């Protein structure tokens, strides 16, 4: 039941010792990057002075903004020729964040994902259908290589195209799938509409659900619909991607691999450590990656520690489900979106007024993003067709910015609700 037994059930003292060794190497590695070299110099810190997690906590947090400022190479710790792949944030707003991987980094990440998959029971004999986007998004490729490492027959089908997904599920008798939880619910309906019962007519036994927050109820629903076990998966591209934390068969919190990361959970306002059970922001330090070491990265994801030992025997601490975000990012159909991206597009169009609102709803298990846009009175020329063209233009410009096609509705100026005079930008009415 363990992929790497020694590491997975390693006694805490030994695990902490291993973390120290790896942290030390990471700090030396970080000192090679322009960003951390400058930071260490400014704080008069020598790499030797950072030995423990407590020492590390003397360093400031690293934020997504730091990564952006560091574009393109300020976080790179190896010669570029040692880099074999990069992953990058998908948005086109501003500067992307880029993570570089050496061959060894990728090998470790692949092993990390294989460990997760093995933990939940995926084996060489499984047929693994990877229904996540391939490309710059880490969800597709990350899980793909992990499944191959296990020896599973891996189908790189990617996201979308439900008819084809259903055909593959049937024809190859797929037993394990990596899928967005919202898509899993939607797909079940489509399967039924083809006259099939996802429970009886398919062979799915394991589903890996991640890339968007979801509730225990959603998981149970997916499990009932497909007659399969569904496991929560957590990752982010700055920390490789999928495989950062994963549920074990006990399905009670996700084990965060502490031989790959140092884990902190902090109060997002004060930055102070949270007590066990208290919800705070996950802060991670890579300790098993050479090309792009990142120290104390503020993930903006909110969760809490689960401190009790897990019956599965793994000693790596668990975190709760992701409870939300400490910034205003939201996720639509697996795509990360910041309101500022929407705002930039809207404010670049002269006919658009000053106020707008993003409404998120779930219809038939599908995320619907609607952008309500106030029109500017002065630029209304009495023409319905011009308005319709404006609506279409807003829609297509948003689509190319956020990679999701929103519904756009034009509304009268001054009609969008405000809270205490402050515009409410995002109204999320989805039930997770």
């Amino acid at each position: 039941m363990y992929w790497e037994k020694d590491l997975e059930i390693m006694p805490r003292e030994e695990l902490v010792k291993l973390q120290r060794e790896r942290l030390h190497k990471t700090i030396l590695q970080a000192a090679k990057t322009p960003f951390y070299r400058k930071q260490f110099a400014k704080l008069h810190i020598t790499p030797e002075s950072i030995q423990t997690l407590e020492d590390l906590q003397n360093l400031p947090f690293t934020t997504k903004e730091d990564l952006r400022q560091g574009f393109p190479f300020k976080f790179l710790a190896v010669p570029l020729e040692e880099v074999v792949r990069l992953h990058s944030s998908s948005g086109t707003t501003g500067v992307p964040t880029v993570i570089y991987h050496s061959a060894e980094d990728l090998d470790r990440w692949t092993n990390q994902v294989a460990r997760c998959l093995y933990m939940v029971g995926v084996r060489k004999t499984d047929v693994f259908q990877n229904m996540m986007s391939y490309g710059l998004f880490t969800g597709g490729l990350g899980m793909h290589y992990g499944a191959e490492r296990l020896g599973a027959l891996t189908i790189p089908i990617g996201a979308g195209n439900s008819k084809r997904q259903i055909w593959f599920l049937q024809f190859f008798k797929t037993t394990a799938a990596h899928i967005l939880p919202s898509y899993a619910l939607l797909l079940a309906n489509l399967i039924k509409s083809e006259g099939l019962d996802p429970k009886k007519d398919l062979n799915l036994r394991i589903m890996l659900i991640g890339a968007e927050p979801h509730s225990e109820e959603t998981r149970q629903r997916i499990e009932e619909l497909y007659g399969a076990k569904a496991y929560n998966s957590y990752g982010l591209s700055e920390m490789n991607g999928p495989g950062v934390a994963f549920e074990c068969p006990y399905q009670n919190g996700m084990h965060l691999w502490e031989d790959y990361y140092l884990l902190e959970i902090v109060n997002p306002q004060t930055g102070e450590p949270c007590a066990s059970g208290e919800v705070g922001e996950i802060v991670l330090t890579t300790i098993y990656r050479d090309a792009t070491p990142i120290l104390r990265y503020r993930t903006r994801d909110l969760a809490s520690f689960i401190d009790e030992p897990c019956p599965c025997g793994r000693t790596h601490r668990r975190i709760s489900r992701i409870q939300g975000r400490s910034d205003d990012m939201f996720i639509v159909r697996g795509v990360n979106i910041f309101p500022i991206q929407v705002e930039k597009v809207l404010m670049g169009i002269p006919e658009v007024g000053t106020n707008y609102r993003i409404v998120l709803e779930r219809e038939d298990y599908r995320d619907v993003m609607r952008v309500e846009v106030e029109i500017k009175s002065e630029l209304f020329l009495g023409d319905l067709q011009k308005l319709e063209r404006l609506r279409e233009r807003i829609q297509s410009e948003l689509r190319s910015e956020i990679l999701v096609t929103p519904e756009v509705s034009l509304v009268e100026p001054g009609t969008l609700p405000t809270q205490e005079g402050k515009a409410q930008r995002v109204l999320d009415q989805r039930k997770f």
Partner: protein
Amino acid sequence: MAHQISVFAENKPGRIEKITRLLLQGGINIRAITISSANGFGVIKILVNHPHQAYELLRAQGIPTYLQEVIAVVMQDAPGSLHAVAQVLSENGVNIEDAYGFVIKSGEMAVLVIQVESQPRAQSILERNGFRLLSDEEIYHL
């Protein structure tokens, strides 16, 4: 030359109620109204007795309103009258972008309101062909 006011409105209950209430409060009389809508919003076109006043009144309430020149053609309320107008315009290659009509006195007089691309040209074509066009003032006295 006559004027109509065009009002942007979301396609939801209460919009026309609000606009007509404001016009009522301003003592404005509505001669004709037409609504066209697309994806969740529409444009309400209203012919009133005091278009400039109605325009200022709605604008002051923050409602996107546009004051637009239109041609108001007097017709007989009899078969073939509308066709006669359309024929003249067609022969002269004038494209009608929007139109609506209303009867003033049954069996006697009707008005056709049209919007075309080149308003002055269409106006002179119609006048040359003997049609009577109404000004705001004349609409007011109808």
